[in-house]
């Protein structure tokens, strides 16, 4: 599934190798309460035209991973290890000025919270115009404004010609997010990092945005890192999936690996708690008990242990992110159970799910 679609053009960075390679990325923060290892060893590669989904609960390190790729977590209290290469070019050692250029042209990021990234005192239109002109100063104000209207229309803002003059507070929550996406697309990037871009959106706009991203993936070979906690969204657009928990990747594989042969009990829990319109509704939604762990106080051994109904003696040791299925070296997970046991345990009333501890 990691194959590049036929229509995608070759990567621009001439040489061989992936468009984006993240190796052994670790990000720690010194906080008042102690050191937080927000990201603890993330590895992946991304090819043009490909969509990589990162899923996991809040605090699992998804946003910090994404922000670190474009150098937004650098600060006196952060400690970053590992490597991020864009077309072979190392980003972690670049100066802030060089990085700004990368952010302004090659990698665009759409943030989770549209309210904090839109400036309340300028109209939405003005902000998009500024983004367009910051990217390409040869574009005049009036044609930038035309582009802004077009982009707003493309992301599904009705009556864009008029609403381009609105201030952010005059938009509904969903409309603000669409405005953010329009701004990200204005840069025509080669990598798009979208951090929960559709979480605040209703389904029709979500579908439009996802199709928009997919179109860009195919037509321009745009590579996308899509951060989300919605597995429905993942199923629609992703090629490969990373499942994060407590700063670590706990399972990594193709879309079909994750949905049809999931190896980690946390992944089973995520899949089990989904509501589905195409199936009869269960009396109660199967839930994962407890709450995500605090990074200040991660459980010893497997981080999922306190919430896992299947834990056993060996779980006191940290499981590595290893290929555990002999037939599939690219499907990796961090769970000590034997593949045979896993296939039995994840089956609940004919569906994949996580048994509730009694």
């Amino acid at each position, binding site marked *: 599934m990691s194959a590049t679609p036929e229509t995608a053009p070759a990567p621009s960075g001439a040489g061989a190798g992936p468009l984006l390679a993240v190796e052994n990325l670790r990000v720690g923060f010194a906080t008042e309460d102690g050191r937080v290892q927000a990201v603890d060893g993330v590895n992946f590669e991304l090819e043009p035209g490909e969509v990589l989904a990162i899923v996991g609960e*809040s605090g699992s390190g998804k946003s910090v991973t994404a922000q670190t790729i474009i150098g937004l977590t650098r600060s006196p209290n952060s400690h970053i290890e590992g490597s991020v290469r864009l077309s072979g070019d190392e980003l972690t050692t670049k100066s802030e000025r060089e990085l700004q250029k990368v952010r302004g042209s090659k990698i665009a990021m759409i943030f989770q919270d549209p309210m904090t990234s839109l400036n309340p005192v300028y109209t939405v239109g003005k902000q998009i115009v500024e983004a367009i002109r910051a990217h390409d100063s040869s574009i005049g104000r009036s044609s930038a404004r035309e582009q802004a209207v077009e982009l707003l229309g493309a992301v599904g803002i009705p009556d864009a010609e008029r609403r381009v003059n609105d201030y952010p507070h005059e938009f509904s929550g969903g409309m603000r997010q669409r405005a953010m996406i329009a701004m990200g697309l204005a840069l025509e990037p080669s990598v798009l990092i979208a951090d929960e871009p559709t979480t605040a959106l209703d389904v029709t706009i979500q579908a439009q945005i996802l199709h928009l991203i997919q179109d860009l993936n195919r037509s321009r070979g745009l590579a996308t890192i899509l951060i989300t*906690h919605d597995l*429905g969204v993942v199923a629609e657009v992703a090629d490969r999936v990373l499942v994060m928990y407590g700063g670590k990747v706990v399972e990594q594989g193709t879309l079909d690996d994750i949905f*049809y042969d999931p190896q980690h009990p946390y992944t089973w829990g995520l899949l089990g708690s989904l509501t589905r319109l195409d199936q009869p509704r269960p009396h109660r939604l199967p839930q994962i008990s407890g*709450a995500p762990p605090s990074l200040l106080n991660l459980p010893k051994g497997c981080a999922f242990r306190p919430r896992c109904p299947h834990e056993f003696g060996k779980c006191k040791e940290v499981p590595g992110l290893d290929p555990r299925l002999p037939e599939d070296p690219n499907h990796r997970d961090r769970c000590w159970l034997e593949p045979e046991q896993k296939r039995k345990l994840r089956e609940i009333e004919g569906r994949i799910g996580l048994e509730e501890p009694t």
Partner: protein
Amino acid sequence: MSDVGSTSTAGGPLLEVTDLVKHFPIKSGLLIDREVDQVRAVDGISFSVNKGETLGLVGESGSGKSTACRAVLQLLKPTSGSVKFEGQEIAGLSRRELRPLRREMQMIFQDPYASLNPRKRVGQIVGDQLKIQKVASGKALRTRVEELLERVGLSPEHYNRFPHEFSGGQRQRIGIARALALGPKLVFCDEPVSALDVSIQAQIVNLLDDLQDEMGLTYVFVAHDIGVVRHISDRIAVMNHGKIVETGEADQVCEHPRDAYTKKLLAAVPIPDPRESRARRERAGTTG
């Protein structure tokens, strides 16, 4: 489009909304604000909710769901229309006249971060209304708040903590405890789980379900996740451009939608099953 409850109980509906309208003026002009037009956020909706029932409200962003909830609750002054709670007209009542009704009708908000005062302790947040409405004070107040905290899955020891010490799911539980403090009959839940993690969403939905059974609550439940709305609702109303375009039994609306807009809305719901969603894309691709 009023759909007097299919599961209607003897005493008539708990809430009856008729031709409710809420328009916002659009102003323009640099020096003098002139009203040039209106946003028809809610444009004449009618629905009823029976006791013990959950009415789901779905629709695209900007379709007027939040505005509708706020106008029904009189948190926004309706432009026109009638809102009857237990048969009594409440549209147009003064703040003072509304006060006793605040005990009966409550709201749980989408954003568990913004909706809790960061400077107040959990005990105060949950207990404030009990105190203001003079329902309890002193030791009885504390006991009541501790009971509520336990009931929503928190612990009595959380009484003296501040909101920032809690996760999103826990904050939403605080919001629920606050909404339930006065023993309301009707609770508006405006996207109560949208900001939460999937695993926590299921916990909160199950909690709301249990509380409804135990306390005989009636819900109006807004969410953009139609799967969640269908799960929790008896009936669903679909909103588009400030109007209700379809109302019906939850399963009926999801499985056999009548309205074209509802069909479009349902077709856009992602199927969390890659093979199914590929098949659907192919079907859509071959038919047009």
